[in-house]
């Protein structure tokens, strides 16, 4: 089967060591994580992991179930690019003297809809938000002009095309059920 890029979205309780449990499922299959973003979610106390990796669908399907099986993982689902909105952010540090001597550099910034965050005598800090290809294109253009001092790109953040996060409902329902049981 063909390998495709999948985005795995995992919700878990905010507990130390949870990431290790998630990545253990990749390690045992020697699957390489492409990008990883971890942060708090819109639900208090619940963390959200956005992981991208190349895999066969059969494999990612099983891996998602195995991750969801971990006690403190609330939910794990996988998506193809068509099923989500996604963005990445990158920072580029450009040499100020080189930019002043080369008009092409400021054109590149404008053409790519990048934002300037900071300018001083030695460097210019540029930010670009977009898809991986857009960010990498900008990087290559700066490199071609030999003006790039530093570069960093984030992992992907993604949001599903569903109307809302059905998860909070699920959790609150569980809590409500729990109260109803009254054991």
């Amino acid at each position: 089967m063909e390998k495709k890029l999948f985005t795995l979205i995992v919700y878990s309780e905010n507990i130390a060591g949870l990431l290790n449990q998630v990545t253990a499922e990749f390690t045992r299959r020697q699957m390489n994580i492409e990008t990883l973003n971890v942060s708090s979610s819109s639900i208090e106390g619940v963390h959200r992991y956005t992981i991208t990796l190349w895999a066969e669908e059969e494999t990612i399907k099983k891996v998602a179930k195995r991750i969801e099986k971990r006690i403190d993982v609330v939910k794990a689902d996988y998506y193809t690019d068509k099923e989500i909105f996604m963005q990445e952010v990158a920072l580029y540090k450009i040499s100020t003297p080189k930019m002043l001597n080369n008009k092409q550099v400021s054109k590149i910034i404008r053409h790519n809809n990048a934002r300037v965050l900071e300018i001083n005598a030695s460097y210019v800090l540029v930010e670009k938000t977009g898809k991986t290809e857009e960010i990498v294109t900008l990087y290559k253009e700066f490199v071609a002009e030999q003006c790039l001092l530093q570069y960093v790109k984030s992992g992907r953040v993604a949001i599903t095309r569903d109307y809302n996060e059905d998860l909070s409902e699920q959790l609150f329902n569980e809590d409500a059920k729990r109260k109803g049981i009254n054991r």
Partner: protein
Amino acid sequence: MEKEIIRGAEALMRSLMNEQVDTIFGYPGGSIMPVFDALYDHKEDFKQVLVRHEQGALHAAQGYARSSGKVGVCIVTSGPGATNTLTGIADAMLDSTPVVLIAGQVMSSVLGTDFFQEVDLVGVTQPIAKWSYQIRSAEDIAWAVSRAFYIARTGRPGPVVLDFCKNAQTSKVAFEPTKVDFIRSYVPYPKPDEKAIAEAAELINRAARPLVLVGQGVELANANEELKNFIEKANLPVGRTLLGLSALPSDHPLNMGMLGMHGNLGPNVNTNNCDVLIAVGMRFSDRVTGLVSTYAKQAKVIHLDIDPSEINKNVHADIPVIGDCKETLPLITALLENVDRKEWIDSFADYAAIEEEKAIRPAISPNGGPIRMGEVARRVSEATGNSAILVTDVGQNQMMSCRYFKFTKPHSVITSGGLGTMGFGLPAAIGATFGAPERTVCVFSGDGGLQMNIQEFGTIMEQGSPVKMILLNNNYLGNVRQWQEMFFNRRYSWTPMLNPDYNKIAEAYNIPSRTVSDRAELDDAIKEMLETKGAFLLHVAVMEEENIMPMTPPGASVNEMVFE
């Protein structure tokens, strides 16, 4: 109410009592000393079993759990004490055995400094345990212990690790008993889907050649009666996995035998002849399926399992029925029709006749020659009225005893299935004598596996554990030798083994023993073993180069069993 102020170690004792723990297997050491000090004051509350190696403690806790249906408990120290239990943790995970390991840990203030006997136990065990947690303060104890037991025993059971920092053992806490019976991210008993139940029942009613595969899930759910009702109502023939052997009495008319690489011919061949395959609490292990790409391709598959991640893992399920089979089996049974399936059921007998002739008779009623492993197993089983608990080590002794032992009661087979841990048998059998003190516990080992945890003779001596040990000695690492004979051109690399005098070893530990090499003496020796009060080592010199047959060779399909 005023809360009592007690030390963390004492809070652990109270928490264990709240979980109705009655037996603890363990081994002391530096960073768990406050806990063992507290145990000194609780000799009346817990049976306290000092093993001779921490691996033995974990396996003993497994044997206890599987014979009693309760959670096995094990307490060891940090570092090497903890890492010595890892084989047992991994074993318990693969075989879904509920155990709680409490291991000492260095003080939380020095974590990460490579302190003496510090090891990242949570990090090491996370991939092989159901849950791992570090207790860093005494306030955490009541909650963590209750959560550990809840996780270990509910849903698909498994091992839980509590990494217990020394400062949490010694500091004071206002103790409040806690009962965890809900975790919002954890659904141990998924609600059965009515549609799936109805579809499953309809498919079974329409089936001409249904076959039920029964695994340990039935035993873990205590659903033995529900299984019987299910198969009897619709005349469904059954094959059992290694761990599911005692889920149905061996002599039940619908029991068609054991599945798997060294299972019985009928259920294996008919797996590829059936039209509906109904898997109950089993996970389609590769030892059961053989070549998975040719496995039951002609059949519709119904898979009953409590663990959603088992569905479609190895074999595609046309109808997944997720839930506790104690709940789902009766729901399906209620919708079943009584269909006569005599012709289909009779087809198993044809295969049984072939196997009887080619494998079973030579194994249990040979015409002279050295003693065979199978005949020992069958005779021991019959001498106990087929009511004993069978514990096995791993290898030929395991396959032969599981093939020829018979079962009349639930929770009667304790063997390392998934991990295949040599050295499992002896300590697990010790644990079983505590988990089911009213029953006879027989453990079959080979000369290789017995020596992997033979130090536990010391535990038997000290505890007076009535373990009936049957050593099938062929002077080889027999299973590997068999593969070398069949697939490696008889090149016996590292498998012939010079053995010690086992009777002398037993004598050193005050364990009565007897060596048998003559078939005529076998029954008398078995009788002596069973009539002797307490432990006994029956050392049987068996045929050196006997092969377990039939066999599904590696890479072959489930219906391609060979006899030589």
